[in-house]
C-alpha cells in the first residue's frame, strides 16, 4: 500500500545509539496504527461521489484531519537531545573527517578574489579613489556609452533569403 512510513525500518536501531543515524525527533503518531486510512478512503470517495455528496464532503474532511494527524510530530513528547560543547565538537570533528574521506576537495577553502595581507590597518586606511581616477572613469563611461548607442547593424546582404528554391533543388538531387 501507498502509505508506508519509512521510519519503521529504523525502529530497531532507535534509542540504541545516538549516532548520525539517530532521529532528532521521535514520531509518536506515525507509529500508532490509527492512520492507515487511504485505502478505505478511496473506496468511500468512490461510492459517495454520485449519491451522497454531503457524506463525501465529511469523508474528505475526516481524511484531511487524519492526514494532518499523521503528519504532525509532537515535539513536546519527544525527549530532548541536548549536546554539550565537548560532544558537539567531537561530532563536528567526526563528520568533517568523514566528509574529507568522501571528497577531499569539498572542504578546501575557496579561492578568494583578494590575497592575504599581513597588515589590514594599512590597507583599510589607504586613500580612496583619487579625483583624477573618478574623473577618468566618468569621462570614459560617458564616451563609451555614447559610442555604444551609435552602434548600428549595417546589413550588407539580402535580408530575405529564398530557402524554398534551394530546398526543391536539393530534394530533386536526392531523388
Amino acid at each position, binding site marked *: 500500500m501507498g502509505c508506508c512510513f519509512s521510519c519503521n525500518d529504523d525502529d530497531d536501531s532507535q534509542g540504541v545509539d545516538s549516532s548520525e543515524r539517530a532521529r532528532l525527533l521521535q514520531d509518536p503518531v506515525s507509529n500508532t496504527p490509527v492512520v492507515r486510512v487511504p485505502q478505505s478512503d478511496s473506496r468511500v470517495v468512490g461510492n459517495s461521489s454520485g449519491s451522497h455528496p454531503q457524506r463525501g464532503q465529511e469523508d474528505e474532511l475526516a481524511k484531511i484531519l487524519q492526514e494532518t494527524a499523521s503528519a504532525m510530530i509532537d515535539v513536546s513528547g519527544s525527549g530532548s537531545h541536548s549536546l554539550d560543547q565537548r560532544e558537539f565538537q567531537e561530532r563536528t570533528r567526526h563528520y568533517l573527517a568523514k566528509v574529507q574521506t568522501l571528497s577531499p576537495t569539498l572542504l578546501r577553502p575557496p579561492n578568494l578574489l*583578494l590575497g592575504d*595581507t599581513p*597588515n589590514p590597518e594599512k*590597507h*583599510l*586606511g589607504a*586613500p*580612496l579613489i583619487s579625483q583624477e581616477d573618478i574623473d577618468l572613469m566618468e569621462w570614459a563611461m560617458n564616451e563609451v556609452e555614447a559610442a555604444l548607442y551609435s552602434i548600428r547593424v549595417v546589413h550588407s546582404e539580402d535580408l530575405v533569403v529564398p530557402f524554398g528554391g534551394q530546398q526543391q533543388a536539393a530534394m530533386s538531387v536526392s531523388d
Partner: protein
Amino acid sequence: MVHVEKVPGQKGYMVIQEDGTILSSTGELSSNELTSNQITSLMSHSLPVDFNTSSSPTAGLNGDVNGSGEAGGHLNVSFSPGGSSNGGSGDVARGFKWNRITVQFKDESYVACLSNRRIHVVKRDNAESAATSQQ
C-alpha cells in the same frame, strides 16, 4: 582586533569569515549581514591579471580584439593559458594577488582586505576621508 579608529572618515567596521559569518562589527556595519553577505560574494571571484605582460600596452590598438571568436586567441598571448575566465589556476593566478578592494559610491565607500583568512571591511565617508588625507 585591528585599530580602525585612525582610518580617515571611518563609519563602521566588520571582520567576517570567508563563509560570511560576522566575527565582530562596529558602527554602521554593526551586525550588518547584508553587507557581509555581499562582500563575501564579491570575494568569490577570480580575476588574475598580468600587469607585467611582455606585449606592449598598445598591442590591442590595431583593433583586432573586438569580442569576435578569433580575436579571443589573439590576446591570450598576454594571458595565462590556464586562466580560462573563472578557473584562476594559471601561472598568473598563482603569483598574482589583489591586496585591497574599494567600492566607492557617491558619498560613501567600502574598503576590504583579507588578512589571516579573515575579511576586514571598513565603511568610510568620502568627503571626510579626502579632507583628512589632504592634511
